[in-house]
């Protein structure tokens, strides 16, 4: 690696070094309490998958270039040069970490691995060695926002087709639009992923004054760890919400999108909620009713890390499930310590390439789900959903993987 590249990369590193980040880098005593925290280590048992080991890879470079002691006596802290090899190590560390922050609840100091890994992600982008597919997806997503007019038409045709489906399945009264788009002054802006059918049915049943966002929720910028693009993708939703003057932005079943929206959007004139919260609210207020006899088999719920541990939505899904079924089975350990599905942090988006790793690293998750004896495994995140389906077939778990919102829609009483 030549000097120029290295300097550029170190500049990126420097930008990341705010007060909190420095604390995270300084404080670790390598006590090893976090050893058991990571599902990858718990499933595969390799040292390199321990959270603190992942930090050390970043920390070595930090010591080398940003600390005097790393310059004077590098070996005492194993300070290491930023080289091609270091980049490879960074890649290994960061694209085997889902950013679930389970390790953070273990650490006596609360060191945030995900945040330290964000340095690594940025360095990889700087060196153009990040997973191409993620950047590709990010850029497509950004492009779409730029040429809104062009893609609006296709979008609206798509919606018309979806509408037919909604009408067919949940007979709504004539004259009503099944999927409203671009409604000025709506109460709630719903940011969806590919399909919006079950969600639409529920909003309509609850008599919500809602409108569908032009944009998809998922933020690939966050997966690849590019702060500028993350912001771009986030901001256009914020702008849309402001333009339509909505009171609430409801994010569909996407953990990353929810957390990015909730924690990075800053102070805005609207509330941010997840679809799970909204559904629980409708049920509590009696705006929708569900049929308990619809699902007779035991149900368990996988807490998506970004929504539960990192987003604080823990009671709501349980409320919904207790409305849906008499046989809801909690996984153990409890939500705060729930195992990650193994698909977060962009790993699922990498697709087939890392299927093998994703399956091996999430063995503990499969075991945890099976121990409940449930036949329906439900969750509230697109990423988790995909990963759980893969796990289901890989480990022959014999469960049915469902979205919580689709279950609510299916059990809806007219």
């Amino acid at each position, binding site marked *: 690696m030549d000097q120029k590249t290295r300097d550029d990369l170190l500049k990126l590193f420097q930008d990341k070094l705010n007060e*909190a980040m420095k*604390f*995270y880098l*300084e*404080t*670790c*005593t*390598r*006590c*090893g*309490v976090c*050893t*058991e*925290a990571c599902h990858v280590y718990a499933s595969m048992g390799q*040292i390199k998958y*321990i959270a*603190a*080991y992942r930090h*050390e890879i970043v920390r070595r470079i930090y010591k080398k270039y940003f*600390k*005097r*002691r790393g310059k004077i006596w590098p*070996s*005492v*802290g*194993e300070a290491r040069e930023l080289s091609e090899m270091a980049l490879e190590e960074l890649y290994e560390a960061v694209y085997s970490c889902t950013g679930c922050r389970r390790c*953070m*609840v*273990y*650490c*006596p*100091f*609360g*060191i*945030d691995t995900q945040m330290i890994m964000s340095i690594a992600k940025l360095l990889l982008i700087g060196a153009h060695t990040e997973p191409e597919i993620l950047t590709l997806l990010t850029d497509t997503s950004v492009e779409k926002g730029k040429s809104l007019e062009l893609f609006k038409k296709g979008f609206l045709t798509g919606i018309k087709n979806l509408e037919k489906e909604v009408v067919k399945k949940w007979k709504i009264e004539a004259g009503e639009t099944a999927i409203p788009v671009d409604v000025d002054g709506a109460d709630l802006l719903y940011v969806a992923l590919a399909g919006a059918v079950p969600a639409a049915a529920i909003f309509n049943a609850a008599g919500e004054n809602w409108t569908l966002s032009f944009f998809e929720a998922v933020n690939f910028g966050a997966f690849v760890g590019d702060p500028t693009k993350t912001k771009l993708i986030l901001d256009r939703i914020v702008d849309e919400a402001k333009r339509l003057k909505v009171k609430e932005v409801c994010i569909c079943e996407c953990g990353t999108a929810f957390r990015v929206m909730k924690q990075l959007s800053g102070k805005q004139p609207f509330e941010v909620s997840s679809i799970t919260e909204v559904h629980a609210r409708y049920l509590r207020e009696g705006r929708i009713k569900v049929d308990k006899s619809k699902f007779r088999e035991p149900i368990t719920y996988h807490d998506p890390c970004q929504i539960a541990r990192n987003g604080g939505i823990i009671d709501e899904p349980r409320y919904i499930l207790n409305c849906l079924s008499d046989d809801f089975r909690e996984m153990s350990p409890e939500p705060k310590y729930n195992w990650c599905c193994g698909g977060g942090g962009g790993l699922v988006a990498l697709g087939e390439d890392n299927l093998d790793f994703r399956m091996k690293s999430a063995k503990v998750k499969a075991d945890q789900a099976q121990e409940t004896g449930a036949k329906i495994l439900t969750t509230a995140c697109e990423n988790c959903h995909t990963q759980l389906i893969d796990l289901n077939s890989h480990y022959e778990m014999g469960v049915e993987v469902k979205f919580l919102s689709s279950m609510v829609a299916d059990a809806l009483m007219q």
Partner: protein
Amino acid sequence: MWALHDTFLLPTVRRHNPIFWVFLMLFHISFLLLITGHLELIGDFRIFQIAQHEVFLGKGFVGLILSISLLFFLFRRFVSPNRDLSVPEDYYLLILLFLTVFFGSQMDWARRWYDYGNLPIVEYREYLSSLLYLKPHLSSDLTSSGHSFMLVLHVFFANLFLMFFPFSQVMHSFLSLPMNKLRRG
């Protein structure tokens, strides 16, 4: 409030590694006592002397506990996977501290086993304050009191530790509270 709880009672360690937790608590509490004990040596500042105490709080047990827990920490790091996580710094620190604490408490034991009589606290004070004024001065009473080699080693290692301190991970002592605040939001 919860941040204080997290910082001083280490609930996460207790849950995940109870034995380690016991040693950690013993170690840190003893360390606090130890610092209190050493304050006696800086007797010039009255505020530290509100409660009367001896240098050797706890009759040498503090030192013993510290030595044992330090050994425990050290051996813990020889076992995988902690071994692979540790960097040389961690070992140096522990060894250094162990040596300091070991010789420190030896002084106390030696005093009692061989009946040297009282520690000449006054002279220690003189030595420390002379250091402070950059005029090192050792009174001959000190060097002749029989266990001086232990004292010299103790002071030597202690100084090494103090030099190393701000550059090492033991900075966690100051950072721990803000960090736990950060987590609790």
